[in-house]
């Protein structure tokens, strides 16, 4: 039995990691992680090149003070005196600036006119923030550079809930949670669908009949599920390494250290437990559903109902990130199929009593105790059901025999 299981496992694993969907999925995943990690920097650079180029005009004394303050957020070009009518051609002729900021003293403070190439996207709010000290200076008589010194306030956020000591730690944990839940979602969905495709291939090409003549359906199903699961973990490791490398590249070693500080041994154990449980639940149900189809074309419609709980669980986990103690989150964190996502998220971002995590795992194990024989029997019977896709009543009849 063990030898059969091992053979199916190794053959299936090799076939899986050589398959085009696995290679493409893994490659695209790494690419996406890379793209998402450099995208903010690229966008920022693009923004600095495009939006941040401005010109400032106005009375020389006022303009020099405004120049200095605006350099906090903008690249300021010297445009000399402003024309009566500012046109697009004027902006283009002055190093392609995106806006001309005209400052002048008004009653009680500062007045600013902005002539922007695209007023809709120009960050006028930043101008307001940057020039606020000058406005106060003109209104109060205190020099602008002194006002500017009091612009920033030092804020220290201290955690008192016992879960996080610092805001950075909380943010890192949320980031790690989001990443792991996304991985769980992708691995569950992609690999369960790969598993269904594999079962459907064996069913429709009738290899399944040869296989179950040689080995037990339990070995066949177990080997396939485990191989798919391991391929999923391999994918997870590759993506995690890519994420860490990307984090290191974009934010330096400190970024990696912050992220790693959120991945404690308890987190690894709880994540792997929920990963294995969740993956087993879904993959077994997917495999059983796939064994009932007679044509590969029917695969989508037959397995679609199983996609819904995965999507629901993923969105509930997103909600749990923001409100880990909400009633809906609390309840769904104990429901099998949902709890691998929701309880794990709660465990990460809230102070969850140990017994709640244990109870959720227990409920899932109880669900697996039902799913394993049910899926096993459905798989064994389904593999030999050919012809039209069976009705629920037919499946029930066969399951009872």
């Amino acid at each position, binding site marked *: 039995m063990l*030898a059969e299981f091992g*053979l199916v496992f190794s053959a299936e694993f090799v076939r899986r990691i050589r398959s085009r969907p696995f290679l493409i999925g893994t490659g695209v995943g790494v690419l996406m992680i890379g793209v998402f990690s450099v995208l903010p920097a690229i966008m920022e650079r693009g923004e600095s090149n495009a939006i941040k180029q401005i010109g400032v005009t106005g009375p020389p004394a006022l303009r020099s003070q405004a120049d200095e303050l605006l350099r906090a957020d903008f690249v300021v070009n010297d445009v000399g005196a402003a024309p009566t009518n500012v046109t697009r051609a004027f902006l283009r002729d002055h190093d392609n600036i995106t806006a001309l900021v005209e400052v002048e003293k008004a009653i009680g403070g500062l007045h600013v006119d902005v002539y922007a190439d695209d007023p809709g996207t120009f960050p006028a709010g930043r101008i307001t923030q940057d020039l606020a000290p000058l406005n106060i200076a003109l209104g109060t008589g205190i020099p602008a550079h002194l006002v500017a010194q009091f612009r920033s306030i030092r804020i220290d956020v201290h955690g008192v809930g016992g879960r996080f000591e610092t805001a950075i730690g909380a943010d890192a944990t949320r980031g790690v949670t989001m990443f792991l839940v996304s991985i769980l979602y992708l691995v569950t969905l992609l690999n369960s669908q790969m598993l269904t495709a594999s079962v459907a291939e064996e069913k429709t090409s*009738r290899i399944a*009949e040869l296989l*179950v*003549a040689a080995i037990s359906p339990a070995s066949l199903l177990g080997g396939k599920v485990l191989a798919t699961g391991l391929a999923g973990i391999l994918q997870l490791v590759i993506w995690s390494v890519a994420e860490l490398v990307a984090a290191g590249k974009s934010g330096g070693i400190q970024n990696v250290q912050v992220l790693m500080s959120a991945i404690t041994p308890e987190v690894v154990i709880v994540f792997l437990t929920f990963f294995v449980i969740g993956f087993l639940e879904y993959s077994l149900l997917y495999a059983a559903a796939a064994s009932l189809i007679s044509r590969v074309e029917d695969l989508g419609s037959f397995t679609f109902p199983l996609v819904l709980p995965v999507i629901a669980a993923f969105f509930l986990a997103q909600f749990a990130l923001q409100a880990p103690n909400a009633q809906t989150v609390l309840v769904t964190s104990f429901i099998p199929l949902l709890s691998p996502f929701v309880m794990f998220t709660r465990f990460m971002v809230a102070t969850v009593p140990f017994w709640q995590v244990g109870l959720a795992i227990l409920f899932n194990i109880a669900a697996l105790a039902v799913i394993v024989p049910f899926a096993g029997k459905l798989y064994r019977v389904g593999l030999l059901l050919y012809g039209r896709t069976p009705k629920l009543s037919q499946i029930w009849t*066969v399951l009872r*025999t």
Partner: protein
Amino acid sequence: MALEADHVRRSFGSVAAVKDVNFSVNSGATFGLLGPNGAGKTTMMRMILGILVADSGEIRWNSGRIGRNARRLFGYLPEERGLYGKMKVKEHIIYFARLHGVGSADAAAKADRWIADLGLGEYADRACGELSKGNQQKVQLACAGAHDPELLILDEPFSGLDPVNAQTVYEKLEDLHKSGTTLVLSSHQMWQLETLCDSFCIIAGGTTRAAGTLASLRSAWPMRTIHIQPDDQKSREVLGSIDGAHILSSGDGELRASVPAGTDFAALLRALVTVSPLTRFEPLEPTLEEIYRRAIVEPN
């Protein structure tokens, strides 16, 4: 007996696929399981292999119930063919041999032997999906037999094969028979089974209609066909004097008649010679196809 089926029954819901099937197969024999489409042959084969479980009755191998260990000694070629399209031919054969408990090195050697025997040498490293239907079928046969099974069950092994490939498969089955493998096969090509099989079981409507060696099936056949030349009135009169005899057809100066199996053919020959210038007198044994046709329309 190597394989015995004893009042086997199997239903799917309200449909009884196999109602009452009995047969026995000697060790090393080649056994033909015959029947029309939907007769229950495939269900019967699946029950022998343990893919399905009988509702009642028993199937025995070497007088014992068929368990997991026995099943690993069986090989199976299903009617519907299936291979992993992207797996290479040799890898495929090795995989199936290993699933039946053959060691890695031994499986490779056996795969090489089957590839050579079935003329698949040039395709050994090609993906199965790239092969023609006939060659895929030969690969499947290799998968079914590479572990040297004691019992090889073949559901329609000749269907879809061209005459050359059919001959290759036929010769391979003969080799297996000579080497002592017990073969159970179904086919609609009666002439191939007639020469290949030692004994038969004809099933229809889920029940055994006839079973035994070709000789025993023939001996139970109530009538014989006789060819007589020339076709003249005197000969017809002689035939008319035999109870139960009737003319089947006539043409080209030849008469074909059906006479009871118990007819004294020597006496009939003498009677015909005295009345007609006889040039042909040939009583024929019933063919397997005739026996089959009669068995499936006439319940026991």
